[in-house]
């Protein structure tokens, strides 16, 4: 398995978000994480991505334990191997869409020209070459999410974490983003952890995990 959570527990104050959640994801696999609001699905995603540290349990990425790494190692991992897509693109408003996609490469020390060339290829793959010179405030919600997907994949990320990536979009734009996102991830061989409460979005994945009362369940396995 490429990425695993083993018996994670996590509390925020007196609220127990995770209570022994385990799941794993293979290389190139797309897994939907579903569950009612407050079930702990976003907390599980944040633990898997090394954004928050679980109170107990382990997160293993290619047999390395995330909590055993230094902060520097963890952020290098997040920058190089992981990609992120959130509900609202979280693009840098002052940069153009092309510069937003090129940003992770620039932070990684790539030359400007090389970074922008690769970013332009990703805009093309996501069918949004026309927004390259625009700033995030000038593009539609669906286009902005496609820019965010391009930014997540441009580094050659091995795992993309997506938290309600279509949550702010209407059905038609949501479908388009999901089709392009999953196509792009499959082509580049990236695994995807897709948190969503929408079944039609989850249906783009290879399988689903349901988070309920802080535990992760594979319902199909018991069926």
């Amino acid at each position: 398995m490429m990425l695993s959570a083993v018996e994670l527990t996590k509390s925020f104050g007196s609220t127990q978000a995770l209570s022994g959640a385990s799941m794993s994801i293979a290389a190139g696999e797309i897994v939907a994480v579903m569950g009612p609001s407050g079930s702990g699905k976003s907390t599980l995603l944040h633990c898997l991505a090394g954004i928050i540290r679980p109170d107990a349990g382990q997160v293993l990425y290619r047999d390395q334990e995330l909590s055993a790494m230094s902060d520097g190692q963890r952020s290098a991992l997040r920058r190089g191997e992981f990609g992120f897509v959130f509900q609202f693109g979280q693009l840098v408003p002052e940069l153009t869409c092309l510069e937003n996609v090129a940003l992770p490469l620039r932070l990684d020390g790539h030359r400007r020209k090389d970074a922008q060339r690769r970013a332009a290829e990703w805009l093309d793959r996501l069918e949004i070459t026309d927004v390259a010179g625009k700033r995030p405030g000038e593009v539609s919600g669906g286009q902005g999410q496609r820019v965010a997907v391009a930014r997540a994949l441009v580094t050659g990320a091995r795992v993309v974490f997506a938290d309600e990536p279509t949550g702010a979009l209407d059905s038609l734009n949501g479908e388009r983003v999901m089709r392009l996102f999953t196509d792009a991830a499959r082509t580049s061989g990236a695994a995807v952890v897709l948190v969503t409460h929408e079944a039609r979005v989850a249906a783009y994945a290879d399988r689903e995990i349901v988070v309920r009362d802080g535990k992760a369940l594979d319902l199909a396995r018991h069926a």
Partner: protein
Amino acid sequence: MSIGQAFLGLLESQPRHGYDLKRAYDERFGSDRPLAYGQVYSTLSRLLKHGLVTVDGVEPGEGPDRKRYAITPAGVADVEQWLQQPEKPEPYLQNTLYTKVVLALLTGRPAAELLDTQRAEHLRLMRELTRRKTGGDLADQLICDHALFHLEADLRWLELTAARLTELAGKVRG
């Protein structure tokens, strides 16, 4: 689904032989359930009897003669009326899933497991339809989306029922 009216609509766009009509129907509306030839010819003979179609020409060939069918003005009026009439929305008030949940609770069986198993099955079919949709043309997308929205509605009901199971158990066992 009214095969008769679908035939009339297809014939209004152009006269066709019985076989061409079946093929056009299967391609557009048949999905994975093509029409049987018996169904095609019994429908056509009913439309003929009611004066909604007419035989436009006969070509002799090997085996039975090939008849070409055309729509009549009465047929056009029939299609027109059918298209203008709204379909009755399905209320789905007699539902097998609901019956199963109530019976499971009534007999002390694990209703939550039943809901989970159903949920997994629904999502499995939704993934299959999504794959078909993403690889298909616009017609495939439309028909798959129709099915996907209905399955999603079922799934939301499954989730809501799972959340209300304790309350429902109390009521059922009264």
